[in-house]
């Protein structure tokens, strides 16, 4: 009964979405506010019904109701309870419902926050939210129904179980955060379109969405970083970013979204870049839907993608609809988006922001081109020409370094024009520190890429520290505060500015972590008990190879002792070779999986993978990697999020 109720809830939610659109149009012509309030309530009702349907599917997953095809496909009796719940987003149908669920939370929050506010924009915001919700409701109702019954004429006693790669704690958090990031862009997009339709194209919509955009951007950043963390911990190739199409699909809206959160500052402060901001948010949201198309259409082969389905054309059609209708509205309102202010000098802070935006968009286009190239060549020539990491690294690295440079230059530039006096006042210290770092690194013997990244990082950090120092000095001089008090007060009273700088520090630290990739080392050995291998000044010896049977898998566990060059013990590593569904009578359904063990320090990670086991000879085949500075990537990510949280923290308004 309840699975059927889940399906009915989705039917009714679709009806609510359609009626809310009709109500708003009716309200537009009739001016009867009852219709507007009804539209609000229809959106809220739709959100509640989607929430109910999600709750029903989650309950059926936990209760192992194999009468539902989705439950039978993605869980089994042996699947641990927490992974039964995470199976909600493991497959196509469930993840579409989960997408809708998060969109419902966002849409519901927008409606509740704006019940009596933003009355010029809100009716059209409701329309956009309902259109997007309606699209996903059509998919879950008619194309990928998560409540579809099992197509079997016998009772299904057990399910297929969850992919072992997804049975990881990070996987319980990574997709929800990524979705929170992806889907959240619906809200600024809805406000932008509402501004275009209503003609209220001033800065009101920007002020309404600034916080939303930052929240969304933060979740997308967390999602991307957690995805890298998961790949590093789980996939066994020793890296965190592979330029996989689905990784790129999340990176592209992040790039345009980052450009957007910078360029709205210019609109707020200088009333400029109004059209550009519209273009950026339209592109960002379209890239979100396009990314979903890449993941779900089956056009790309990726570790992340869902199997081929009929959803591809629908998503592609929706992307074209969004782009065509949005740009048509933009063209209609183009004259009202023109600004009287102009950029007065190439050396102004405004120019710095524009350069930053251009680089982000060019970078996005480069990633888009590299991602789509195999699809385009297959469509045109009939053969798929794959573009691998070397292409991306070659194109992206110089653009990313230019962006890193601008991260340091931006805070030093003056609004309207940076005079010679300002230049000599602001730039010498960061330039000196950057050059000193470069000279020291060249003397030590590092290669050009490391010298470039590290010296630019030093320049940026110096520029940011200088900004903090100047701000603290002002407070100290004016108010007589101590340095620590002035730091705290300065940050708490200018959260947006200094939170942003802290996020930039996080980015710089991540860049330093990326340079470690140039020094990765690896070796592969087949070792028997007592045998040893050597790599990067470490001795790795196999102490023992044991076995264990656990509820949902069988495991071979290698105990590897790691000693340094002086014979001092560094750590013991315990990588495992697992076979999931080992009790399944059909050998084809048993799934092997390597569970890694990593010894992580600030300087380097020692990364171990048990690739295979020869039980007859007792040989453990292993891969060992030495990955320098990886921890900086994660620490940088944490600082980035911390800085964003500071920017987001609500301020206490002064009277």
């Amino acid at each position, binding site marked *: *009964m*309840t699975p059927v*109720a889940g399906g*009915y*809830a989705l039917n*009714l939610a679709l009806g*609510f979405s359609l*009626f809310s659109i009709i109500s708003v149009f009716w309200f537009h012509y009739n*001016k*009867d*506010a*009852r*219709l*507007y*309030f*009804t539209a609000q*309530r*229809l959106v*809220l*009702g*739709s959100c*509640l*019904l989607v929430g*109910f349907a999600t709750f029903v599917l989650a309950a059926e997953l936990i209760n192992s109701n194999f009468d539902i095809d989705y439950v039978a496909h993605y869980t089994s009796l042996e699947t641990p309870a927490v992974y039964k719940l995470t199976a909600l987003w493991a497959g196509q149908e469930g993840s579409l419902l989960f997408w809708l669920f998060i969109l419902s939370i966002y849409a519901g929050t927008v409606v509740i926050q704006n019940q009596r506010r*933003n*009355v*010029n924009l809100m009716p059209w915001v409701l329309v956009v939210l309902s259109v997007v919700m309606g699209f996903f409701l059509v998919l879950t109702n008619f194309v990928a129904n998560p409540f579809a019954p099992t197509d079997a004429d016998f009772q299904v006693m057990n399910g297929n179980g969850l992919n072992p790669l997804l049975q990881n704690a990070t996987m319980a958090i990574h997709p929800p955060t990524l979705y929170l990031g992806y889907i959240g862009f619906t809200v600024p997009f809805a406000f932008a379109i509402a501004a275009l339709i209503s003609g209220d194209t001033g800065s009101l919509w920007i*002020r309404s969405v600034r916080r939303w955009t930052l929240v969304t951007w933060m979740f997308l950043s967390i999602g991307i970083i957690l995805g890298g963390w998961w790949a590093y911990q789980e996939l066994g190739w020793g890296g965190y970013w592979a330029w996989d199409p689905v990784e790129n699909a999340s990176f592209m809206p992040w790039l345009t979204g980052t450009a957007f959160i910078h360029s709205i500052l210019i609109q707020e402060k200088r009333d400029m870049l109004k059209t550009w901001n519209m273009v950026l948010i339209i592109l960002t949201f379209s890239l979100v839907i396009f990314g979903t198309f890449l993941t779900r259409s089956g056009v790309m082969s990726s570790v992340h993608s869902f199997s081929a389905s009929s959803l591809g054309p629908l998503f592609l059609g929706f992307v074209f609809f969004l782009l065509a209708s949005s740009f048509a509205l933009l063209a209609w309102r183009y004259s009202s988006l023109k600004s009287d202010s102009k950029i007065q000098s190439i050396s102004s*802070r405004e120019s710095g922001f524009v350069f930053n935006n251009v680089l982000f968009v060019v970078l996005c286009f480069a990633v888009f081109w590299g991602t789509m190239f195999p699809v385009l060549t297959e469509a045109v020539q009939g053969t798929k020409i794959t573009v691998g990491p070397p292409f991306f690294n070659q194109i992206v690295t110089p653009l990313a370094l230019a962006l890193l440079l601008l991260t340091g230059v931006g805070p030093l*530039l*003056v*609004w*309207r*024009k940076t*005079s010679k006096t*300002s230049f000599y*006042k*602001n730039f010498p210290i960061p330039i000196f520190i950057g050059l000193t770092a470069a000279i020291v690194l060249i003397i030590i013997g590092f290669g050009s890429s490391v010298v470039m990244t590290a010296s630019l990082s030093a320049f940026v950090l110096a520029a940011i520290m200088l*900004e903090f120092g*100047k*701000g603290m000095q*002002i407070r100290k001089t004016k108010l007589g505060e101590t340095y620590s008090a002035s730091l705290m007060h300065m940050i708490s*009273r*200018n959260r947006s*500015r200094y939170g942003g700088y802290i996020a930039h520090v996080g980015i710089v630290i991540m860049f330093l972590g990326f340079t470690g990739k140039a020094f990765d080392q690896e070796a592969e050995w087949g070792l028997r008990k007592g045998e040893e291998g050597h790599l990067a000044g470490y001795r790795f010896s196999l102490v023992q190879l044991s076995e264990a049977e656990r509820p949902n898998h069988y495991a071979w566990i290698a105990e590897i002792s790691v000693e340094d060059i002086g014979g001092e013990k560094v750590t013991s590593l315990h990588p495992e070779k697992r076979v999931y569904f080992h009790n399944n009578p059909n050998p084809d359904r048993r799934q092997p999986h390597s569970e890694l063990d990593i010894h992580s320090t600030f300087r380097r990670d020692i990364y171990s993978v048990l690739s295979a086991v020869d039980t007859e000879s007792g040989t453990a085949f292993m891969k060992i990697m030495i990955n320098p500075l990886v921890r900086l990537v994660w620490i940088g990510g944490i600082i980035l999020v911390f800085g964003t949280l500071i920017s987001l923290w609500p301020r206490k*308004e*002064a009277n």
Partner: protein
Amino acid sequence: MLTTIVLLFVFAVPVIFAVQPMLGPRLTIPQDTGRSPESLKRKKQLLYRQIKELELEHGLGLVPENEFNTLRQELKKQVSEIMEAIRKHS
């Protein structure tokens, strides 16, 4: 039976909730002209924030002296106008 009642309730509640405004008398929403007390207070806070930011940026050497004086004067004038409007409302 109980499940059916619960489910009917689950589906009936959103429907009643959604159509309820239509059962009352016709309403009109005053358009947001930006002159309501809430709107004016929001604008005042925004202007205060802009003045504080301008002062900080001037202190950091990011806004030239002549522009700082002009902008500050302009913002202060806007605050005075808004405070006057708030006073009239109250």
